């Protein structure tokens, strides 16, 4: 937000990523270019949860994965962050119904889970574009032209504003606070991929890989 008002601090929006919520089912797939995390990458479909009955996440293989995670901790609660990651990997975002499922599985309450989900900015509380793009614009990257990168991304993805999903449902672009790669300005994340040294000029080329 380069005009000096910043939507992030505009508290009338509980989540600046919320806008442009897509109600049509769409494909969510993480890319396997660059750095792919081994346990991410299987396909999932985001359903419009307002009409479809809730389909549990923790069944079969995912349930077994969670059971293995539970062995690492002395409490069930401790598996909450990993469990929420599993939900997001499977569904692309974490719905209220999914929070209830996680609460049941870990013997917590839905409200407790929601309190945790809303604390951590990487958990999506709403469906996002097929490619969720986060650009670091904190001071070190800002000095090196990160805001140019944001502008280029908005232009080339067709996203009207930060946090909004592009009309074709492909992209959501947001700013993010420090990605921890300040010496490789500007780092951006596309889904789970971490790209370094992105410049405004490289944006079209980057987007070609995320169609």
């Amino acid at each position, binding site marked *: 937000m380069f005009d000096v008002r910043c939507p992030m*601090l505009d*508290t*009338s929006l*509980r*989540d600046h990523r919320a806008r442009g919520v897509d109600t049509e089912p769409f494909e969510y797939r993480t890319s396997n270019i660059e750095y792919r995390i081994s346990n991410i990458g299987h396909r999932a479909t985001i359903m419009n949860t307002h009409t479809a009955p809730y389909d549990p996440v923790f069944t079969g293989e995912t349930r077994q994965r969670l059971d293995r995670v539970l062995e690492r901790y002395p409490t069930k609660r401790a598996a909450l962050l990993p469990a929420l990651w599993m939900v997001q990997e499977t569904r692309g975002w974490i719905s*209220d119904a999914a*929070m*209830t499922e996680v609460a049941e599985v870990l013997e*917590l*309450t*839905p*409200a*407790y*889970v*929601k*309190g*945790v989900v*809303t*604390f951590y900015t990487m958990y999506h509380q709403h469906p996002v574009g097929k490619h969720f793009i986060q650009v670091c614009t904190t001071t070190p990257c800002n000095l090196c032209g990160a805001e140019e990168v944001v502008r280029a991304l908005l232009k080339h993805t067709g996203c009207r504003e930060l946090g909004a999903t592009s009309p074709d449902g492909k992209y959501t672009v947001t700013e993010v606070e420090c990605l921890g790669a300040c010496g490789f300005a500007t780092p951006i994340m596309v889904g789970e991929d971490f790209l370094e040294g992105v410049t405004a000029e490289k944006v079209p080329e980057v987007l070609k890989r995320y169609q």
Partner: protein
Amino acid sequence: MSEHELVSLTIEGVDVSVPKGTLLIEAAKQAGVVVPHYCYHPGLPVAGVCRMCLVEVEKTPKLQIACATPVAPGMVVRVMSPPALEARKGVLEFLLINHPLDCPICDQAGECELQDYVFQEGRARTRYGSFAKRFNPVEDFGGDVLYVPNRCILCTRCVRFMDHVADDSILNVSERGDRALIGIHGDRALDHPWAGNVVDLCPVGSLISKDFLHKARAWELDRTASVCTGCSQGCNVTLDTRQSAVVRARPRPNPDVNRYFMCDYGRGQYRWMNGGDRIEAPLLAERDGLVATDWDHALARAAQLIKGAAGRTVVLASARASTEALFLARRLAGGSSVTGAFRVEYVPGEAPLSGVPNLALRSERAPNATGARVLGYTEAFDAAVRTASEAGLVLVLDEPLHGVPANTLAGAGMVIYLGTVLPEAARVARVVLPIANVAEEDGTFVNRDRRAQRYFQAKATPGMARPAWWVLGELLAELGRGGPFATAAEAFDLLSREDPSFAGLSYATLGTQGVGLPAARPPVVVPA
């Protein structure tokens, strides 16, 4: 024993000695100083987040929060020193920048800790300027609770109560930074049977009661110590009255009974106390039915009936009657052939407040069943009703006839009825004597743990109604068996002299917190 070890320190120039481990904020109370605070509450785990209770501790470089700092020997604490005042003024300014200052329409105004402390030590003018304040819409949390997020100061008392005391995390802190607010999940309303406590715990007008919404301003209310009538737990409560109507019941702290809490069922009890269907004058049975009269005539007729009664006397009482009235009614019925019975409603299952030992909404839904038992009443109410037809005299106390069939006492002997309302079954009475309800008299209840607790008169009696202890005292005096009593205390004194279960107790010893009856004894055997 380390817990009895005392630590001496100086707070605001006052020397105090407190048990080791005491927190500064509690020790300060002993020095006569209330350290301003929001998130701290003695009934909740310490959070230390509002940072309001910052005080200066000598030889400590930074200001310390009094709510999380334990006392240490020789500590010198300054609550009102310039750095401490400056820091708290800063906190108050931060709390106010997003606060709507809608006190004129806020239920909390007048009993709001934000108002109080800002008035006491806040900054006269804000420096926030023209920035927009945070806005979020009012949310209905369910149960009796509304959430007004704009007024919220994020002290998290409500969340900690639900997490650690109710052990049912229905509330959360959502989001973070200045976007944070108290949240709930759509799948679960704030429906816990003890959830109403979050309204009392909220130091500002953020969590408010729908039941009390816009009913009264805090400064119009009179507050009276009382005991909840909802069940046999005997939670200590404060009745708030406005123009002779009870408008709200709130918990009154008692570490041995209910700590700082009461259940939502108990909160709703105040409503029946305002009932408009009251008997407002003594009634005598004449040819035309029950006819209003004055107390002199009514008492004289009742005394005459009692003197002339032969054979068995049956006392049918409610477990909501005061201990004094229950005692005096038995005494009035005479020593020999008396059957005393009481009726009490049972609702299966208890609703415990898990964070407080021995605190629950009990299935025995009356405040004085234990008192009745101690005084020799039995629960064989139906059997007592059956014997009523052979009895010479039936004395009905309070409302045991509520909801019984209209012809229950049809074949009974002479019925003298002391009550607040007149159910159909009581219309057979020869004398009807109007009495005060719990909000209108002084008296005591004995809770399930045999703790005798006083309640105080909170509002005026309607019409000519009088406390049952007064009515029974007058009748006893007519019969020359004690009384009359000018106060409930005198009636209780007679009880403590006559009944060993209450030996040595008086209103002075009971105070406002109550005292356990002397050790449990075998039930009183009523001579046949």
